[in-house]
């Protein structure tokens, strides 16, 4: 029996450069932790509903859908190349994250919405994990290329032998440079792991690691 949840659209917020609009659900932005709990509890895929530009005229007063949580994101054309990178452990736990490209150099509007953007990226990355689980058994490759697509955003994935996932959320497709980036990341991850004081699933906080990842991003992305 499909779950129905009605969502009053309290608030619409638009970034200054009009590249992103976020519908708030209830009283605040749904946090990433909430999404995870919901996902786990119901065993359902969290989904994001996209509304195309037709939403401009007359916006629905509420949405009825049979998914548990709705976090509506519209990304419009014109956003410059930017990347969100996250390393996810075997328990779907993030170990390391970084942003490259023009995210940081965005205009004032974007900077103001850092939290939402970040939540969005985290959400996109996290919800692609289900797709990865399906795809990883159909292929023997470690570089799974793009595993999920969300509007103009892709998620690329590299899966290590120990089931650690390197996820890159990006808005321009470039398979080979991303593969080279992931190869460098794998080298850095292995070096981290070979240290007896580092355990699988621990967060990676080394500054040197961070610098090297960013250097790799600069080199290939």
């Amino acid at each position, binding site marked *: 029996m499909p779950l129905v949840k009605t969502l009053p659209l309290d608030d619409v917020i638009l970034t200054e450069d009009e590249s992103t609009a976020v519908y708030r659900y209830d009283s*605040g*932005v749904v946090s*990433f*932790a909430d999404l995870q709990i919901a996902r786990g509890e119901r065993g359902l895929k969290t989904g994001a509903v996209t509304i195309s530009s037709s939403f401009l005229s007359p916006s629905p007063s509420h949405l009825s859908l049979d998914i548990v949580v709705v976090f509506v994101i519209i990304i419009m054309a014109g956003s410059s190349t930017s990347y969100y990178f996250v390393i996810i452990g075997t328990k779907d736990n*993030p170990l390391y994250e970084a942003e490259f490209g023009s995210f940081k150099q965005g205009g004032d509007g974007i900077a103001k919405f850092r939290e939402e953007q970040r939540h969005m990226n985290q959400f996109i990355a996290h919800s692609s994990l289900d797709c990865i689980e399906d795809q990883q058994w159909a292929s023997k490759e470690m570089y799974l290329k793009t595993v999920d697509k969300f509007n103009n955003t892709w998620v690329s994935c590299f899966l290590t*032998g120990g089931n650690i996932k390197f996820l890159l959320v990006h808005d321009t497709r470039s398979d080979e440079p991303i593969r080279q980036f992931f190869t460098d990341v794998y080298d850095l991850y292995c070096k981290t792991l070979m*240290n007896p004081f580092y355990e699988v699933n621990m967060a990676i906080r080394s500054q040197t*690691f961070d610098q090297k990842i960013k250097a790799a991003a600069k080199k290939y992305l």
Partner: protein
Amino acid sequence: MNRDPSPFRTASVASTATSPTPKYANLTASTNLRYSLTRKSIYDRHLNRTKTSELSKSAFAFLFGEMVQYAQKKVYGVQDLEKKLNLHGYAVGQRFLELLLWREGRTAKRETRILGILQFISHQLYRAIFQKQADTLEKVRENEDEYMISDNDPVVNTYISVPKEMSQLNCGAFIAGIIEAVLDGHCFPAKVTAHTAPNEMWPGRTVFLIKFEPEVLEREALRVGS
């Protein structure tokens, strides 16, 4: 609900009442570590530098023996001791798994079938760590979820003198831990135990019994024919 003609308006960001998701809060990089001028960080060292390096077997034997001695003081009984050895092997196995796959470079593949991962373990992994292949790889006929890998002369049994109180100790638990880590890491969760199975030629022959979790078999069944 009525909407304004222009439904959009910019607004200042609400203070993050929903603070950054807890799991992400502690990911900022930082360091207090001093690095030697002469020795660069671990990230500057090439992963292949010690690929073919060797040490004496007795160095390993002495280290292993002392590891057993130390663990023995903290446990009650052989099973507990074997668990500790398994844990040490597990840590080693996790690292070798990633290291070996990294070393295969672009041709590296992830195994998706039970037989594939078992062959990886008994051939590539065993060869890389012990400079020889495992001696046999078999399926246990009676049980769907069990397989066996055997080693006629496991290196952990060389020179090791088992403390008298622990005469039933199987040092192979260490290797079982290595195998278990590789299976778990590669998404084939299993329990691996070591059993002495001597024959005429090989008194130290050890069999590693691999018992897969049910989900592995379910998945394998779905994949049959694909």
